[in-house]
């Protein structure tokens, strides 16, 4: 079984999920301006 920093993929994937979450948040923060309503 392939290991990442000594961890099996099922555990290491928690770091990957966190990284992807931050990337998604960055994309949302930078590009999703369409529905704003700051009167």
């Amino acid at each position, binding site marked *: 079984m392939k290991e990442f920093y*000594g961890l099996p993929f099922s555990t290491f994937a928690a*770091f990957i999920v*966190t990284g992807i979450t931050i990337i998604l*948040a960055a994309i949302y923060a930078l590009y999703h301006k369409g*529905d704003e309503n700051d009167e």
Partner: protein
Amino acid sequence: MNSVLVYVIVLLLYFCILLTVGFLSQKKTKKPEDYHIGGRNIGTLVSAFSFVAAYYSSVVIIGGGGFGYKYGMSSIWVGATNVLVGCFLAWLILGKRTRRLSKKLDAITIPDLFGKIYKSQFIKTFSAIIISIFLIIYNVSILKGLGNTFEVILDIPYIWGLIITGAIVLIYVSLGGYFAVVWTGFIQGLIMVFGLIALLFVTLNKVGGLTVGANMLREIDVGYVETPGIWGLNGLLSYALVVSLGVWGMPQMVTRFYSIKSDKAVRIGTLLATVGGAVAIIPYLVGALSRVLYPNITNVDLAIPMLVKNIMSPISGSIFFSAVIAAGMSTFSAVLIILVGSLVRDLAKDSFKINMSNEKELFWCKITNLFVGIISIIIAIRPPGLILALTAFSWAVIASTCLAPYLMGLYWKGVTKNGAITAMVGGTFTSLLWMALKQPFGIHGFIPGIIISFLLIIVVSYLETKLKREKTNFLNAL
């Protein structure tokens, strides 16, 4: 320099900053709306970091380390779920709509928003009572965590830690209200982020790196590195959902969306809260690695305090200690301001129709803050035996009461008043009953509570609308 002296100097400096923020915030607090939600004008950075600070209490940092020690590396999935569901998705799904709706309806508290969405005094009063009772229980557990931290790390009596931290929070919340809560929360959030990062680096250095630490854990038991490993899928999934999805129904978190100044601030805040919230992984990871250094700890909650005492320098240790204290104090103050809003505004003013001018309401907010805080401190001096069990359910009961009516009220046009009432009452009693039955199948009370609550709101609202339509068609046909 003597390490205790370093701890005391850093703590005194930290407490002085908090009190200064309290005094400065007092000048900005002129009307009840300022006291409860900061005049709806809080900036992006402050909102995001005070959200993170209110989210992670000292119980999470110390308790998270304990879970890491007990169950191993699989527990970092709890931190990852906190980041994804508790931070990113919470801001994405709830942020803008809550800000707009609370502003449009001129709602200041969560019960106030419910009352105005559903045009129901019962919903407002019921939610205010549940929030008040169960947040006091939550407060007691936060205070207990603060007292224990002082006791373990500084070797000073539990009661002194309780009184010192409790009194400082009461002073700055009474003086500055919500402004003081979010600005101190912002500072505390930053301290938490830096303190946890310092702990991570020191621990990895001591263990010899992540790979070495993971391999040593594998030698002890392979279940400490695998997922779900020793914890098991049911326990891991259920706990991760409670402490992540539960946030969506917690008033002290949701209120950040009332007070943030613009949609743009919500958008940018989503990124900042997600990045800041990512430190949630650290206590679990460090707790798991601490088993390599200290394999025979019987009380798992001592895993992180032992690390701090034994491997950190006085300077980095005092910063981490301040971070744990900051985590507890920020959550205590965030809960306190919600309690005051529910008791003074929702119950006294709106439900019991006690007439108050703006000045009188501000005065009573400050008095109630002191009163509720002192009661919480008194209960925390000798917390009843059941308090820990009740604490786990305080989140479950509040979320089971609030989450379905809140989410459906934001997104579903077909939701009805009776649907919301049955969901609130049904969700509350289901989670309480589950607790009374001692959690059948090992499932946390939050899960059945929210399932029943969502089912009730959907079924009752659908049937009510359908019956109304049929009755109208029938009468039209006459």
